[in-house]
């Protein structure tokens, strides 16, 4: 059994008298104890998928199963064992932090409410603001309060939609660590969306790239990065930069820039091509004064898929 199963999911909205397909035949499965990332440009359908799984949106067609159940058929059982957190919807700003968490603890039927709230506020360093209204909190504090709510029922399935937006780098790192710790100590499968590639790379076991409502690719971050064959090499030489440029061209390499003593070229990551090329450069007697190798990042993959619109089938 997969904690999250999505099969042939389709969702469209009416926009200016036309139906616009936002999620187009999306299928994926999240394994037990896996953090599964959804990546894609704005409007790719990430949040729509999260909202459908959260029970806030109904799908046009397709099927979702959470913890082996169709949510609408086993509503209480499923909803009690999952939770959602997003930075875009803070909790009620009229209520204090503690009041909000008490309400949600009761909604989930938590027994030891005080202990649970104390524990979460301590983990997220929010104990000092427990009696403050959410309205008076900073955006970072609000986001963390929402995360507290997301963990209040010790969920087995957690949907995290851009949950670190608005956090400063220090708090964002602490938050990621909390997510990692929670994931490590609980049997929890997570669906995670973010626009921060390093965050997705750090947290997610596998990533699905979405574009225009379709899944373009599902794989690990490492394998995805291998989809970009070329790496960029920037070298600086003391002299003979023109000769080096000509030499690289004769080697069949694509020289992107040659200015003064700096040359930037692309080389494929396959067949030890970089190693062989560098050996040849040294063998020819070129003396390097600087070297910088830029390997493909998840960011490059994001841009590649976003611009291409589609690639290989998953």
């Amino acid at each position, binding site marked *: 059994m997969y904690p999250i199963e999505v099969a042939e999911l389709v969702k469209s909205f009416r926009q200016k008298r036309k139906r616009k397909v936002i999620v187009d035949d999306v299928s994926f499965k999240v394994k037990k104890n896996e953090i599964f990332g959804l990546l894609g440009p704005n409007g790719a359908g990430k949040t*729509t998928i999260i909202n459908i799984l959260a029970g806030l949106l109904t799908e046009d067609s397709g099927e979702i199963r959470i913890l082996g159940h169709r949510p609408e058929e086993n509503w209480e059982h499923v909803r*009690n064992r999952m*939770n959602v957190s997003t930075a875009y919807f803070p909790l009620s700003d*009229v*209520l204090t932090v503690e009041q909000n968490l008490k*309400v*949600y603890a*009761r*909604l989930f*039927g938590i027994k030891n409410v005080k202990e649970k709230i104390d524990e979460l506020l301590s983990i997220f360093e929010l104990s000092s603001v427990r009696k403050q209204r959410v309205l008076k909190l900073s955006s970072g504090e609000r986001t963390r309060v929402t995360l507290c709510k997301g963990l209040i029922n010790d969920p087995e399935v957690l949907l995290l939609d851009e949950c670190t937006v608005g956090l400063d780098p220090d708090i964002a790192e602490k938050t990621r660590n909390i997510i990692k710790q929670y994931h490590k100590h609980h049997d929890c499968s997570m669906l995670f969306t973010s626009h921060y590639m390093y965050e997705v790379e750090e947290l997610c076991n596998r990533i699905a790239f979405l574009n225009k409502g379709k899944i373009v690719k599902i794989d690990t971050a490492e394998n995805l990065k291998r989809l970009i064959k070329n790496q960029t090499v920037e070298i600086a030489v003391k002299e003979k930069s023109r000769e080096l440029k000509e030499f690289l061209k004769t080697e069949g390499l694509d020289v992107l820039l040659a200015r003064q003593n700096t040359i930037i070229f692309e080389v494929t990551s396959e067949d030890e091509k970089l190693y062989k090329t560098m050996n040849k450069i040294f063998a020819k007697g070129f003396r390097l004064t600087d070297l910088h190798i830029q390997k493909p990042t998840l960011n490059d993959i994001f841009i590649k898929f976003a611009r291409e619109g589609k690639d290989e089938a998953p």
Partner: protein
Amino acid sequence: MKLHRINAQLLKFWYITINRVDRIFDIVYWPLIDLFVWGFASFYIRQLSEVNLLSMFLGGMILWIFVWRAGQDIAVYILEDFWSKNLYHLYTTPIRLSEHMTAVIVMGLIRSMATFLVMIALAWLMYAFNLFEIPVLMLASAIFLLSLFSWSIGLLVTALIMRFGQRIQVLAWSIVWAIQPFSCVFYPLAALPGWAQAIAAWMPTTAVFENVRAIIFGTPMNYALLGRAVIMDLALLVVMAFLLKASFNHAKRSGLLARGD
């Protein structure tokens, strides 16, 4: 339905009430204004007439609170969730629409009772008007029928908000007042023009106020009208519940529930 989830919502509404002065203030503010205006006017008119106008106006006004307060509170507490974008989080918990609405209705009833009791006390202190001159059974029936009707109004407004979003929130405050002229709160059904009588005769509220007046003036009660009011109230409640469920499903299809706007 689970009691702990209804309690959780009631706890939230209680927190909202104690955290916001205006939500405490409005329990008595408008009814108090009405009490002054109608009370003073009735006092003056009583000098010109033999009829017990003070009882008629104040009795009508105090009972109208159930329609106004309970109906409006349902809509306002739902709007509160829209304003704070809280529906997103609420409906990702196991709560069901029926539990949410039950909590809102109970909270509306509690606030109506609070306003009702304050008004009874003030009317007695200010005008020596005792609402309990109306037999308890009739009073209880009136409260029951008016509450049922107000819930239907509350469900209708909630359904419209769920269907069209916050932009129609003005209905939360105004719809009850559109019904009042056809409810015969301060005047008999016979005083209305023919076309208005045709509408008012079907309103459960008319049945209540007609019979309250009959008791005050010592004329025979119209049981047929009361019986029709019970059927109308229940029918309206069922229709509005279905309408709300349909609007809620629409909100889930259109994305309004996820956006909360």
